[in-house]
């Protein structure tokens, strides 16, 4: 029976955060592949030019680095899933660990399909979308494994309608769709208009989320901090969006991707991922603080009641 010793919990939490950070590197590597037009520089998969290590020249360097980092992240995710299964007693944590592993395997297969397919606008967009799902799964798992999540949190009640957690959840969903639209535009599946409309909707929802959280939970320091992160990444992402658009239009006549174009567009991709992650974490934090109020009260009372609350959580999955 897995047991949550504080030391093991802290270790697996740190490992989850490390894996999440490596996934950011993986996202960056993927952006470098796309924006250096190197997505098809290695026509075969899973081998590269029929061998394990291809000639590392030109665009192959980007594509092969992406594959190597993806391999490392896959191994890290496998280790994380096994580690969680061994030390975590909460079923949700174990399920999330295996889900992350399943996602990274599916992502590898989708990456292979992207390489082998002739017209990859759809498969490349799907690959980019699944990458974001995998990343927010890891980010959410990290939060769930964190000492913060498992600590006794102060009570917070939400009398507003719709609930702040619901608003945050919808914001996360819309940001995800917006990220997918951006990927679809990047891979030539659609034009820029849907992505611009999406930006407007995201703006409204991000503002609404921030207002709802700040007004309804003025004393909830962690939630307010989450809003600060959300707004910071949102502002950065808007600026990067304009910069990426400018870089793209000014590079229209270039015969090859310029360093400025690659830098700004990859930064925009990363900004989208971080915005999505911050919104995901804020959403989960809202659910944790509001939903966990009764349990937090109980846990403050007696250790025996804490154990009972833990049992109830296990039973609830």
């Amino acid at each position, binding site marked *: 029976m897995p047991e949550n010793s504080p030391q093991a919990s802290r270790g697996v939490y740190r490992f989850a955060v490390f894996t999440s950070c490596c996934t950011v590197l993986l996202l960056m590597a993927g952006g470098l592949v796309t*924006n*250096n037009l190197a997505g*098809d520089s290695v026509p075969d998969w899973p081998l590269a030019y029929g061998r394990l290590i291809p*000639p590392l020249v*030109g*665009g192959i360097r980007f594509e092969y680095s992406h594959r190597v980092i993806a391999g490392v992240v896959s191994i890290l995710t496998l280790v994380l899933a096994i580690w969680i299964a061994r030390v975590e007693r909460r079923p949700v944590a174990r399920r999330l660990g295996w889900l992350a592993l399943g996602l990274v395997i599916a992502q590898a297969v989708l990456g292979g399909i992207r390489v082998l397919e002739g*017209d990859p606008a759809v498969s490349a967009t799907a690959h980019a979308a699944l990458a974001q799902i995998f990343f927010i799964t890891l980010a959410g798992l990290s939060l769930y494994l964190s000492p913060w999540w498992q600590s006794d949190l102060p009570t917070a009640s939400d009398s507003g309608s719709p609930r702040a957690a619901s608003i945050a959840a919808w914001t996360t969903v819309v940001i995800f769709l917006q990220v997918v639209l951006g990927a679809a535009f990047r891979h*030539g599946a659609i034009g820029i208009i849907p992505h611009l409309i999406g930006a407007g909707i995201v703006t409204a929802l991000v503002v609404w989320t921030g207002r709802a959280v700040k007004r309804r939970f003025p004393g909830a320091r962690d939630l307010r901090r989450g809003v600060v992160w959300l707004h910071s990444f949102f502002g950065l992402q808007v600026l990067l969006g304009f910069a990426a658009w400018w870089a793209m239009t000014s590079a229209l006549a*270039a*015969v090859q991707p310029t360093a400025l174009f690659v830098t700004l567009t990859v930064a925009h991709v990363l900004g989208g991922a971080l915005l999505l992650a911050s919104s995901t974490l804020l959403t989960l934090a809202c659910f944790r603080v509001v939903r966990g109020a009764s349990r937090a009260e109980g846990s403050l009372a007696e250790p025996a009641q804490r154990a009972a609350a833990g049992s109830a959580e296990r039973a609830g999955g």
Partner: protein
Amino acid sequence: MRIHSLGFMAAAVLAFGISGCGRKSAEKNVPPPAPTAVVNPATAGTISGNVVLDGPVPSFHPIDMSAEPACVQANPTPVIPPIVVTGEHGALANVVVYVKAGLGEYRYDVPQTPALLDQKGCMYDPRVVAVVEGQPLEIRNSDATVHNIHPMPRINHAWNRSEEPGSPPFRVTFDHPETAIPIMCNVHPWMRAYLFVFDNPYFAVTAKTGTFELKGLPPGTYTIEAWQEHFGIQDQTVTLGPKESKSISFVYRSDRSHWNYRPRSSGGHGVE
């Protein structure tokens, strides 16, 4: 790890098997009957002419090949992308002139001599190549580095293939008429060529003289189109009587550029 790799491969093969089946069933559509009439050489005529550029030749930044030492070594001096190539008196090269409309249904022999596309000095040579559908296109790698050849057709079957230095050339055919198929090398993203596939032999790619000749055309009224990668397309209507020869000129103005290509599948970077 090995088991995982095998799992990936099996899933990919399965996925592709499914998608391949769908493609094959689509290809089973019955094609229209092939025409049987042939052009009567006794009445055939010729449309010839030239293509010129009016105005200064636009300038382009030299290609940065620093990411690939073999390419730098093959090009001691900076390479200007051959997007607009001119000869004497503004004669414009790499323009494809072809019959866009007006041809009746005729049967033509498919040339068995392959058209050539070489990769030399990390550039495609020629920049623009045209074939008849079914005619082999032979692709060579004369460089000391690896290339991938990646045509991005809208109608024909897309493919992507690597060619290592010293490997023998390979031949491919394209089964459907299609204009301006971009061919790129994703290892060296500045490499670009354009392929045209026609269902008739009435086309020409201009050399530095800017001249073209469409021989053996049956009498009729034709729309003759010229395509240039930077300046776009121009049309002219020509009526050709029996055994008649006509001369036409296409004049591109250098202040009217037309970037007509955006990669559909390799990212939003709108090169060329």
